[in-house]
């Protein structure tokens, strides 16, 4: 019974399935449009952001970890000292997101009724910082210190073998907060996943206030008023960053192979990796001829696809689906929004192309270290 359950979880947590599930389910959890909102209500997903939803979520997460703790295989990864922060991350992220969504829904209801948000106070109705704020800050610090001390007593800081440049541990992982990047490296060339994307993430995040022209929802929890922005951010944050960290921590074993949480990390496990470049697809498989000698000609399809995706698609969208939006925010904002948004979207797209077509690179010019 328990074993069957574990097997099911193992199968479900394969990235292709879990990632797809999350991606499909995501708009129903954070509905970006009315239609999704309708389904969201109809299916009762909104209950996730109510108190029973909270209990349910906590029980599910805790249950998963408790079962994991008693599972001989998951126990090993779960009890690694350096993995404790990820457990902490899962809990804290769930609690805080639930809490903000809970408050957001309450505020949404109030706003719908024409009321001010809960947080609203009369501008003159202020409180003194001393002692109210200072005191709670103080108490928070003490409690946090207690937590930190207890954590430090119970979990010894890890120390492995002395550094050995000749022997790579299998698997060898980046610090947990960079595991999202390491996961991206599976699908992208280092210069994209290691340089361009991190840059885009930092700059893109810094650019959020400039791209988000929605004046509403400033200074209080709300969802409905800023649902599109929220949906995009939450997808990037939860699915493309935190979820990849969880995968990288718990589900990536020797040889960076995927292992279900309850699966034994067998270093002998072999997973076929026959990846094909887009140019090979087109020239060899589709056109049945050899690869052109000219590099640019060879990769012209890839360049076309790239220019199409990053260049024409935004123009097309600006003319059609996003016409109103384009007019609302103007060309500069639109350009940047598209650049960052499409880059973000490129990650799941590339992941799917890898899974579905074993696609390796869209543009593959190893001669110049230029692979996309």
């Amino acid at each position, binding site marked *: 019974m328990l074993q069957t359950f574990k097997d099911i979880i193992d199968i479900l947590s394969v990235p292709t399935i879990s990632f797809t599930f999350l991606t499909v389910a995501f708009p129903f959890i954070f509905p970006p449009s009315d239609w999704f909102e309708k389904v969201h209500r109809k299916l009762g997903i909104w209950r996730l952001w109510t108190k029973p939803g909270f209990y349910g979520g906590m029980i599910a997460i805790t249950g998963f970890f408790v079962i994991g703790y008693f599972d001989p295989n998951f126990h090993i990864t779960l009890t690694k000292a*350096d993995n404790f*922060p990820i457990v*902490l*991350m899962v809990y804290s*992220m769930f609690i*805080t997101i639930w*809490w*903000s969504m809970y408050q957001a829904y309450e505020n949404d209801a109030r706003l719908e009724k024409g009321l001010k948000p809960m*947080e*609203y*106070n009369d501008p003159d109705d*202020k*409180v*003194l*910082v*001393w*002692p*109210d*704020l200072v005191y*709670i*800050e103080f108490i*928070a610090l003490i409690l*946090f210190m207690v937590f*930190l*001390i207890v954590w*430090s007593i119970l*979990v*010894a*800081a890890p*120390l*492995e*073998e*002395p*550094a*050995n440049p000749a*022997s790579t*541990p299998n698997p*060898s992982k980046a*610090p947990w*907060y960079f595991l999202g990047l390491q996961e991206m490296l599976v699908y992208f060339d*280092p*210069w994209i996943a*290691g*340089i*361009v994307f991190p840059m885009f993430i*930092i700059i893109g995040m*810094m650019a*959020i*206030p*400039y791209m*988000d022209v929605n004046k*509403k*929802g*400033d*200074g*209080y929890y709300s969802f409905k008023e800023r649902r599109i922005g929220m949906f995009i951010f939450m997808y990037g944050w939860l699915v493309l960053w935190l979820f990849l960290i969880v995968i990288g921590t718990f589900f990536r074993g020797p040889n960076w192979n995927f292992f279900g949480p309850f699966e034994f990390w067998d270093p002998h496990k072999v997973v076929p990796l026959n990846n094909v470049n887009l140019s090979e697809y087109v020239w060899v498989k589709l056109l049945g001829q050899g690869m052109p000698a000219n590099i640019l000609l060879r990769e012209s399809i890839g360049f076309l696809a790239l220019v199409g995706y990053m260049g024409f698609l935004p123009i097309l969208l600006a003319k059609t689906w996003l016409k109103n939006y384009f007019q609302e925010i103007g060309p500069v904002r639109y350009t940047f929004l598209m650049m960052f948004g499409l880059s973000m979207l490129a990650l799941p797209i590339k992941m799917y192309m890898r899974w579905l077509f074993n696609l390796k690179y869209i543009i593959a*010019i190893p001669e*110049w*270290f*230029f692979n996309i």
Partner: protein
Amino acid sequence: MEKNKNKKSFLERMGESQVWKSIIRSGVPRSRRQRMQAVLGSVFLHLHPARLPKHAVKVGYTWCMGGLSFFLFVVLTITGILLMFYYRPTVEYAYTDIIDMAEQVPLGIMRELHRWGAHAMVLTVWLHMLRVFMTGSYKPPREFNWGVGVLLMTLTMFLSFTGYLLPWDQLAIWAITVGTNMARAHPFIGHEGPGASLLAIGDINLVHAGSDVRFALLGGRFVGEASLLRFYVLHCIGVPFIVMILMAVHFWRIRKDGGISGPL
């Protein structure tokens, strides 16, 4: 005289003493004015306004995460300084010094406090950012401060990352190797990055493994003695220095941008 004053509590008398006043500037904060003075007169507390909107003192609104991040930064600074007494950043001693933290150094738990504190700080910074996003607090006039915040978050991770190398164990060296290998793929300035081969004069290659950005970061072609020292310096002085400047800006801008966000 003495007897008349007996009614006053010890605290009250202390608050009126010259020493107290000279240090704290206000008396024991009892009155509204004294309370405001207590905040305004203290170099530590005057980051806060004297009064603030009610919702800002609710834990449910702020989650206290910004404050905790700062607190963790302080804790990490203190524990970090103490650890420097027993840690030598050389390939010879780094590893064994860490062993000794656990085996014989008094209060060797400093290392745990430092390491777990560092992980916790990454988390609190993330949660802080999440809260700011969820309440839409990045919106004008706080755009710039959000940007500073993003930089601070990046630097927090970089701080943690540079500290990761210092125990000089397998976990450390390979995490840093994997991490810094990305730098070799940096366009133009990484020797395996696109365009690097274009930076050549005639047959003389300018960007190679001994001259690219990774080389600058590691102080060598591989993670070695020089990298350990570099990461040590970055971890202990370089990055904290930048972080402190940015924190000052960040805190200053909170006040200048109208204090804590809230519905208007």
